[in-house]
């Protein structure tokens, strides 16, 4: 299983042709306390770099973008019921959706862990 990162601070961890997507620890810290999450329904088609979910802190709403094109397999109901899970474990239990990838070739345009850490250091 390999994890990739976007410059919009999403991560995608790929197993076969399904990727689990969430927001990074860096993004969760920037957002602050998450109070509301809106996820796409299973079966929905999402497009790389288009908004697919919403995450809201006390202060503001932010879009979450699809790191790849594909179809939503499932959303993480646990973070809808308990949005604070996103802050507690953003890169684990606080995952957002699972996406069935349409084109695994899109992954090559994303960052690996080292590149992403360097990217954050410059933010």
């Amino acid at each position, binding site marked *: 299983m390999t994890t990739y990162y976007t410059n919009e*601070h999403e991560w995608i961890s790929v197993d076969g042709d399904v990727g689990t997507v969430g927001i990074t620890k860096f*993004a969760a810290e*920037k957002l*602050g*306390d998450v*109070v*509301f999450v*809106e996820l796409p329904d299973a079966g929905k088609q999402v497009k790389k770099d288009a908004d697919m979910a*919403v995450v*809201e*802190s*006390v*202060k*503001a*709403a932010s879009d979450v973008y699809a790191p790849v094109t594909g179809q939503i397999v499932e959303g993480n109901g646990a973070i809808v019921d308990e949005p604070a899970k996103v802050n507690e474990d953003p890169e684990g239990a606080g995952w957002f959706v699972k996406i069935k990838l349409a084109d695994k070739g899109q992954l090559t345009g994303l960052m690996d862990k080292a590149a992403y850490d360097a990217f954050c250091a410059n*933010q």
Partner: protein
Amino acid sequence: MSEASTGSLKKTPLHGLHTRLGARMAEFGGYDMPIQYADGIMAEHNWTRTNAGLFDVSHMGPSFLSLPQLGGGDEAHRKVSALVEKLAPSDIAGLAPGKVQLTVLLNETGGIIDDLMIGRPADPARAGMLYIVVNAGTKENDFALIAAAAKGHAELRRADDRALIALQGPKAEEVISGIFPEAVALTFMNFIRLEHTDYGRVLITRCGYTGEDGFEMLIPAEHGEAFANRLLEDHRVKPIGLGARDSLRLEAGLCLYGHDLDETKTPVAASLNWMISKARRERGDFPGAQRILGEIKSGVPSKRVGIKPLGRAPAREGTEVQNMEGETIGVVTSGGFGPTVNGPVAQGYVDTSYAKAGTPVKLLVRGKSLEAEIASLPFVPARYKR
């Protein structure tokens, strides 16, 4: 997520302290201000509701309007009050010594230029002076207006180079009693001036912007940080940023100028009729009086109300409000998540026929129609010390 350059922003006397406390800073009203500290908005909000929160509000615009000669008793107070009553609809002349009043500056059509606080000193030797505090983002224009209205009769002296520090929350009184014992006797919307060995000349007002009991203290800039540090040494006190200040005031049903109030709104539309005193209604001698008195008598097309989204999704500023038939009836002017309510809260303007508490409405959030209802304000009961 980008952060604006803060190079040209003004700094309060507590700026260095915020930086050392690890605050996340951002622009507000032309100042580089703390939005939150390490604990985050939710924890800061809850701390203020249960303990005591320290807020740097030095970006606001405290000032003094004074006749050339002070000490002329009620007559002097009436004289200086008449100057600001040209701009505001409240009974400033009728203020008891030591009392402060929330009011608004009006344009000639009755639109709200700003909301502000005006106080009459308790000390008879200072009769003929008013303590005036305006908002940060509007202060240059406000000061110019007040100075022009007073020209030739009284002088406006700005005090916005000083530190203005608020301590808010159920434990604020206990904390303050150890430093300024005189302040304990103050009730809500009263102020005193005192000399303190360590902090010099201090003005203390029992007021705030959170719905909680608390104090706002105007302190010489050079003592601001030492005073803030003394408060922070108390285990009951934590520093609170503007993020929690906003969620606290939203739950308390208080207005934020530039969002819930602006020049297109009259005090009647803003549901602030109580500011317009009986004496002033009878005299009808404030800007826009004709329109405002007409609105008091015959009603306004739309007015400010509380709006409670019934689900979990917050409705932010600009959200369209619809009736059950899907017709537009208003707009949200501020909205977010209320940590004490533990759910979304908002306020906005709706057609008056829908303004009654309990009326079901819909909110158009990201293209979806969400259930909500008109709610009476505040969302969290005030705990002022009357």
